[in-house]
């Protein structure tokens, strides 16, 4: 069965919320949609996480961080990495999108719009600094696997755009 909505025990929420992606520290792994399951079963917390990109080097760190923060809170845990269903940027929460924008990363657009901007057909990505959509793509690949590199043609600031993954 495909689990789209993550299953997370209520008492674990405030703990897991403190873990963030080391490359995007403003975004908790819950807002990112990386945690698919976290349940206390027979005294052990079973956590299932899924990578954003296959080669994301942050996954090992995220797994270790989850283990150690749960331990600080008195829980033993097991971490399982699953690939299916594959992560999509649709799983980033509204709060997460706002956090990205405030941090200076333009949040992902929908699939069609994303294709348009990455092919350079349309200007739709808003500059996180000045809000202008008069922006251009510099490179489809940016500082990490999940981002493309953009520049604002009004305020001239370079910035990252979180690519749509569907």
């Amino acid at each position, binding site marked *: 069965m495909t689990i789209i909505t993550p299953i997370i025990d209520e008492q674990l929420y405030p703990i897991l919320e403190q873990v963030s992606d080391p490359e995007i520290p403003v975004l908790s792994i819950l807002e990112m949609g990386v945690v698919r399951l976290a349940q206390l079963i027979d005294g052990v917390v079973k956590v299932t996480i899924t*990578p954003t*990109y*296959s*080669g*994301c*080097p942050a996954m090992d760190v995220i797994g270790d961080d989850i283990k150690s923060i749960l331990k600080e809170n008195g829980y033993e845990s097991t971490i399982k990495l*699953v*690939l*299916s*269903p*594959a*992560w999509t940027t649709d799983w980033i929460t509204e709060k997460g999108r706002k956090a990205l924008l405030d941090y200076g990363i333009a949040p992902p657009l929908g699939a069609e719009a994303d294709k348009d901007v*990455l*092919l350079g057909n349309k200007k739709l990505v808003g500059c996180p600094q000045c809000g202008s959509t008069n922006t251009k793509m*510099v*490179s*489809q*690949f*940016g*500082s990490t*696997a999940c981002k493309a*590199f953009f520049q604002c043609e009004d305020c001239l600031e370079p910035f990252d755009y979180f*690519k749509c*993954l*569907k």
Partner: protein
Amino acid sequence: MKNENLYNYILGVADNSMILGQRLGELCGHGPSLETDIACTNVSLDLFGQVRSYFQYAAEIAGEEKTEDDIAFLRREREYRNVLLVEQPNTDFAYTIVRQFLFDVYHLLFLEQMQNSEDETLAAIAKKSIKEVSYHERFSTDWVKRLGDGTEESQQRIQKAVNNLWTYTDELFHQTESDKVMVATGVAVDVTTLKDAYYAKVNSVLEIATIEVPESKWFQKGGKNGVHTEHLGFLLADMQYMQRTYPGMEW
């Protein structure tokens, strides 16, 4: 080993991505511009990520406490099953891009089919990877068009790379004995069925790029059975050095 055919099949698929990933990784800090340098290493990272999923699965099948690192680093040249195309060196940026393009078009067609594999793990890896590989294909296709239909020099370099790498394309559609067994069980992709779609796509892009499609019907083969070009040995020497010198070392 139980399931030896499945093990061989997974390695055949994964070795393509690993060797190409290693080639692209060589460009780290050496790309022709900062953006292309970062792009090539991003693609490399995606490929290595996919390879880890394949090798972890292969290690599970192999048993005997084999690890993903053993499979990646401790095989001999003849035990690698990648196609000859991906081991060809980064002669210049045109070569790098044409090699990438010729592989990406295949890779995308391949993963589209592997999503329907009877093997759940392989299907899951395909569903994950296909999202990444569609970015790779877009990147290399754009560059082939841009450089092909570019200046006189860039056009000539792309044409030369296409002429020289073309001989390695047919091997993508060959099957090993293990492949045939796995196709029959519904686990493997029957690559012979991808050939027409592949050349149709490649030729259409080359046409836009004002590049002539080579007419030669003579093709190189051997990689899938472990018989490689001289380039692979050098690549492996570089890649395996650390594990061979300090066995069992971890990052």
